[in-house]
């Protein structure tokens, strides 16, 4: 999967959770940039991503992702293992 494909998947999942059809994430997007992406939806988002991409994040990682790019990179690392 390219970073771009991962981004597309993350955008779709978050869009579904927030009922925002045209939501587009970039590597630089931060949670505070997206209306409604609160800690509650963040948990749902993380779990949905884990399920769909068959990866598992550590709690410390989840709590330290700075932006979407960090999530994408972590997914790529997990996939490469």
């Amino acid at each position, binding site marked *: 999967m390219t970073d771009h494909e991962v981004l597309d998947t993350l955008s779709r*999942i978050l869009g*579904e*959770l927030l*009922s925002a059809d045209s939501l587009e994430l970039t590597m630089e997007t931060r949670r505070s940039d997206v209306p409604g992406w609160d*800690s*509650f939806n963040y*948990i*749902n988002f993380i*779990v*949905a991503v884990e*399920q769909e991409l068959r990866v598992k994040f550590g*709690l410390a990682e*989840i*709590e330290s992702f700075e932006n979407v790019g960090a999530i994408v990179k972590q997914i790529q690392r997990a996939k490469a293992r």
Partner: protein
Amino acid sequence: MQWLPLPTDFRGDLRAALAQVDAVARLEQLSSLSNRRLDFVQTIQLDQAVRRQATEGAATFQPLKLALLASHTVEHLVSGITVAGLRRRLLIQTYVAPYGQYRQTVLANDSPLLSYRPDFLLFSLSPQQLLASVPSTASSQDAAAAVSETVDMLKLLWTEARERYGATIVQQTFMNVAEPLFGSYDRIAAGAPVNVIARLNDRVVEAAAEQAVSVLDIARQTERDGLDSWFDRARWLQGKLEVSPVMVPAYGEILVRVIGAHRGLAKKCLVLDLDNTLWGGVVGDVGQEGLVLGEGSGTGEAYLALQRYAKQLRDRGVVLAVCSKNDPTIAHTVFRDHPEMLLKPSDIAVFVANWEDKASNLVQIAERLNIGIDSLVFVDDNPAERARVRESLPMVAVPELPDDPSQYVRCLADAGYFEAIAYTAEDAQRAQQYAMNASRETLRLSADSLDGFLKGLEMNVAYGVVGRVDLQRVAQLVNKTNQFNPTTKRYSLQEITELTADEKCVALQFRLLDRLGDNGLVSVMILKPSNTPAVLEVDTWVMSCRVFGRQLEMEAMNIAAEIARARGATSLRGTYMPTAKNGVVKDLYAKLGFVQVDQLSSTQQATHWLLPLDSYAPHQTFITRRLSVATAETEPA
């Protein structure tokens, strides 16, 4: 949620539903999506779509208010609850009390629950607080004392919540999330956290049973599914979520099962296919001797296991029926003669074996039993038959039976169609009563005239005011009856108890007996003072569908008129409030001689009716009266 079929195209279906112009059609299509196996993201999407809908005018859906009181995060459970509600045509509005403030929310004098007025109130607590107060070295007395303290606190909250808000209380058992400390010895060590939670659950359930509080047994559910699938330690630490987001759809389902059972939405009848469902093989092809059934082979035992489960359901009051594409004689012969058959002809209330369409056969079965089509569960191994029935009768529950017969029972059991909130002697006999009814129906077909049929039944009504022993059954009947129920008012056990103690009100109960047996307590009528002096209001009147068409409504009205007159009333007033299900009583008051008092220009849906008692001529019926001995003091003067 394996019993629900997967959605074919969730996104497309959701979009199509939302594109519907008509609001009711939109809601209808959205609700059909709830009958699919949705993951938690889809569940959230469906919940959000439903929330944006106007629900006025959706008369075939029942609105309901729920309050969640928890010691941990429960906001995320709401989507699962909405969707599970939709699955039962309930529009559930959920109030979530502020995090951890379950005590304050119940006890505060300015509680938001006072204006919210929930119909149901759920206590969902995690065991951490109790565990913190019990050291693992605690003696059994100390551990027991700590458990008692928690149970006493809950009992107080139940009582207060019931009195203040009149809601039906549901208490969730405590999820046993404790880690092993002594190993298997945890079961013995009084202070071992695993043991403390287990004992707490035992005590909570006992107390709940005593106080008629309903239980949501999440402890048992997590045991069955595996604790790790429900409780994700990372989510707990991250946001104090006791239920993992993945399990939100399942949580909503098990909670709304309990709520639905209170509203009479549990299923009543299990309809079974035969070939490759109750036995292996097609009997028409291989003959009785060629069937795979019974001890000796694993597969044969798998079919037997389904029969055994069906029999257990029957013994607790679920009605069994057969619907099979088969030669009727051959099918019957297997029931009669096959030595390994556990189900006997007498277990089956209605037996339909023919070559007709199964959907129309199911309609007939419901008619014969005089129950709603939505009370049926249809079990069939054939995916094509299942799809056809779902298509033409979406209200029938059709579990997505797995291919492997060894998984049949698990699938049916997990689907939880027959959820109970109480179990009375009446319930145990219900299957038999329905079977008797089906034979009464046959009698009716053979009788020359309806009068001949009714006369031949030799009916008796035993009646009286509702007594203490009747309370459970009365509450059940009042809350579960949807058809013969002109006002569809619901009362909790508590409220009914208060009503029976109120001298200004009369709560009457009627049992119908006949030549074929006792139909049990089948009707309840509650009379209350109206705004007009000397006019008594028929506030609530419910009757079990088992006894429709037996003149009981007429005899009950005769009795009510006498009692009302004896109490100095000059008229009885009745109200008909139409719902999706009570069309059967639309003309009830007109038929009983009431006069409609609404002005013709009135646009409101409810109609009001008046029966002057001075000119009342009792209806002639074939029912003889018997006063219940225990309540002889209510005999009219």
